């Protein structure tokens, strides 16, 4: 075909990726916005290896080519990821849009990427010469800047399931459907006999990259709810300093205020 490649195996896709200057086309729902890109597309929808979902040692492996609809209907998809995916765009977009494309687009507004950040997920990146596993936090370098080599494809998201059951997820947007996040927040918290066993937060659509600061969240880990109440204001102050919003469609002041309100709601939800 003209200006396109349609591989039907991962090996074939990686060989084409290595030998040609191509733009990976996963679901197309970001790529097709605006003017047509010059050059050729590498269509990935018929690559079966990118559609696999399987559990291995407590890690859920999600094929990068899985569409949002496929994952919403999959029995292994955790509730938190389903909640975030169900609020992406509308059915027609969810039928084509993929998690690999959501990540590969390089935006801090990507609603599935936010969940992968808070879960400290990793990405499997493959080329015809090798495979590497990179934490998602190291994959995003800056706005639209990714640690992806020109011959690589994102093939899997490796999602640890351990701490995903207790969560608060909030997407702030201008409308219910077809909405791009203005601010998105997710907080994970697991209590074990009144002691915080795990706490992780992530803020999307605020800065060039999703904000995930485990060193701040670790202030709360291992402490009882009573102990945490004493350092609550230090925790909030640390995020007040860490959140440096970029100017976008909404002002940075608004973004920052909403982020801190969402963080406060998260603590209140757990009566901390």
């Amino acid at each position, binding site marked *: 075909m003209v200006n396109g490649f349609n591989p039907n195996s991962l090996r074939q896709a990686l060989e084409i990726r290595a030998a040609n200057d191509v733009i990976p086309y996963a679901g197309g729902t970001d790529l*097709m916005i605006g003017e047509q890109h010059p050059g050729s597309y590498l269509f990935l929808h018929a690559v079966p290896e990118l559609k696999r979902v399987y559990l291995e040692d407590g890690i859920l492996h999600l094929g990068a080519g899985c569409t949002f609809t496929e994952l919403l209907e999959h029995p292994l998809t955790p509730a938190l990821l389903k909640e975030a995916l169900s609020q992406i765009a509308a059915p027609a977009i969810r039928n084509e849009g993929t998690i690999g494309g959501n990540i590969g687009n390089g935006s801090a507004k990507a609603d599935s990427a936010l969940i992968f950040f808070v879960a400290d997920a990793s990405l499997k990146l493959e080329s015809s010469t090798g495979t590497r596993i990179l934490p998602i936090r190291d994959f995003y370098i800056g706005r639209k800047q990714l640690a992806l080599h020109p011959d690589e494809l994102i093939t899997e998201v490796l999602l640890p399931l351990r701490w995903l059951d207790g969560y608060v997820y909030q997407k702030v947007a201008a409308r219910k459907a077809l909405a791009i996040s203005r601010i998105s927040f997710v907080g994970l918290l697991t209590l074990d006999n009144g002691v915080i066993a795990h706490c992780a937060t992530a803020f999307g659509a605020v800065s060039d990259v999703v904000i995930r600061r485990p060193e701040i969240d670790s202030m709360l880990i291992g402490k009882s709810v009573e102990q945490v109440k004493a350092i609550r204001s230090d925790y909030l102050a640390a995020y007040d300093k860490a959140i440096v919003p970029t100017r976008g469609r909404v002002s940075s002041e608004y973004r920052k205020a909403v982020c801190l309100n969402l963080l406060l709601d998260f603590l209140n939800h757990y009566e901390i």
Partner: protein
Amino acid sequence: MDQGIEFQLNGERVSYTGSATTRLLDVLRDNFALTGVKCGCKEGECGACSVLLDGKLVNSCMVAMGRVAGASIVTIEGYSKTARFAALNAAYAAVSAVQCGFCTPGMILASEAILAKTPHPTEEEIRAGISGNLCRCTGYNAIVTAIQSAAKEGNGLW
């Protein structure tokens, strides 16, 4: 490298020899004269260009032709020949769920996608199912009523 992109279009085998990066929407309208597929926004925001791709609702403005190779595409022109369409058509007409009509082809195909998945949907399921299809004149209540009525009157079709 130069062979065309072959696909099923409303049940017929067709071939497209242009660029794989071109939008399905433009090819349907410009090459195949299927002008029931409306162009509202070209960014997946309005649903006017909705078609069925292998039975699933997609925005044809967000689909490049290379994606379509070997697939089956149904537009409102093809769908209008079915008994399911007749049921939806009667239901939309009965409650005046059409005014200017620009959103209607996409809305009908979104209705089909809802009923194919859930033959007797709740109001909430209907509203979620048409959430990517914008209507600027009738409003959504009449459309929701029409889909509920099609599910009832067309019982057994889905």
